[in-house]
């Protein structure tokens, strides 16, 4: 019983430490973003370089064939793509590095 509560206490302590690190990271990041480029739009280099220079030379980017760049739809498809990609990467990493009962490719 005591062991269980000690273990839970340690977990909470670790969790708090993790949250504190994340909070510090967020504050530093937000500070840098706000102060360094308060008026910046964080354009991608495709907008700030590729499309701008192309436009100067009479070539404008057209809309994508499947236009997901509409409001929050783009955030949704990126989230979906990130989740699927992250799941696949995690799955294959585990397949490659699992030590118990034979890794893939072990003789």
């Amino acid at each position, binding site marked *: 019983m005591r062991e269980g509560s000690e273990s839970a206490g340690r977990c909470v302590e670790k*969790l708090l430490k993790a949250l504190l690190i994340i909070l510090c990271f967020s504050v530093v*990041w937000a500070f840098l973003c706000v102060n360094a480029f308060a008026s910046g739009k964080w354009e991608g*280099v495709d907008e700030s370089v590729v499309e701008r220079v192309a436009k100067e030379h009479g070539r404008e980017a057209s809309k994508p064939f499947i236009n997901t760049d509409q409001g929050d739809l783009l955030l949704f498809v990126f989230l979906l793509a990130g989740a699927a*990609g992250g799941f*696949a990467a995690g799955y294959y990493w585990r397949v490659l590095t*699992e030590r118990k*009962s034979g890794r893939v490719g072990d003789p």
Partner: protein
Amino acid sequence: MERHTAHGARFRAKPGKAFAVLLLTAHCSLFAASDAHAMHISEGILPVGWVLFWFAVAGPFIAYGLYRLKGRSAADLSFKPLVGLMAAVVFIISCMPVPVITAGTCSHPCGTGMSGVLLGPAISVLVASVALLIQALFLSHGGVTTLGANIVSMGIVGSYTGYIVFRTLRGLRVTIGVAAFVAGLLADWATYLMTSIELAEGIRGNAPFLPLFWKLLVAFVPTQLPIGILEGAMTAGMLVLLHKKRPDLLVRLCIIKSGETCA
């Protein structure tokens, strides 16, 4: 069964760490969420002639990649999961907008230096092509008409540069981490060098090539200089991690010699 139990025990033993990783991932996703604009050449920018030319250049490399994938998968069982891992990694990395504070813009690493080193450049081109196609079709990232040009810059130039630099440095007895870092860094920069060539040639009309090429290249520098360093660090991290976790795999891929294993 034993495998699942062992795995479960590992996570039960470190629930705080697992949760912290989960929180950090969620946090990064939320903070990184921004309009997904980055570096691939956008839809419709290149004229038809250049669109066809870059597809013609990319075609044979893709066919050779398919041929190599079939051969190597049949010869080595561990190769398919590695291809799956690298495909997912290249896909995620090449559509991940990273804010560059020094420039006030966003761009992304490519991941093809890393996949070029691990899978070989031929299969890395294939992996990059699939990632670029999905991004062009569903993520409004790059374009279908500019797919050939993007495959040439990110897939072919990135993969072959990473592979050649890594092999050369390893041949000169440079450590695996340093060789991977330089390979990732130069693969990223070479990709943007090629993008500048493709763009300058495609959009210049009657204007001279060189001034436009330099203009594009210089414009990429503030963003791509730090992104290249990030790409180098990611490549080195992956190689060093695999060196610790699966040195046998790196030996079979001829990345290290059997005497260099650390596990």
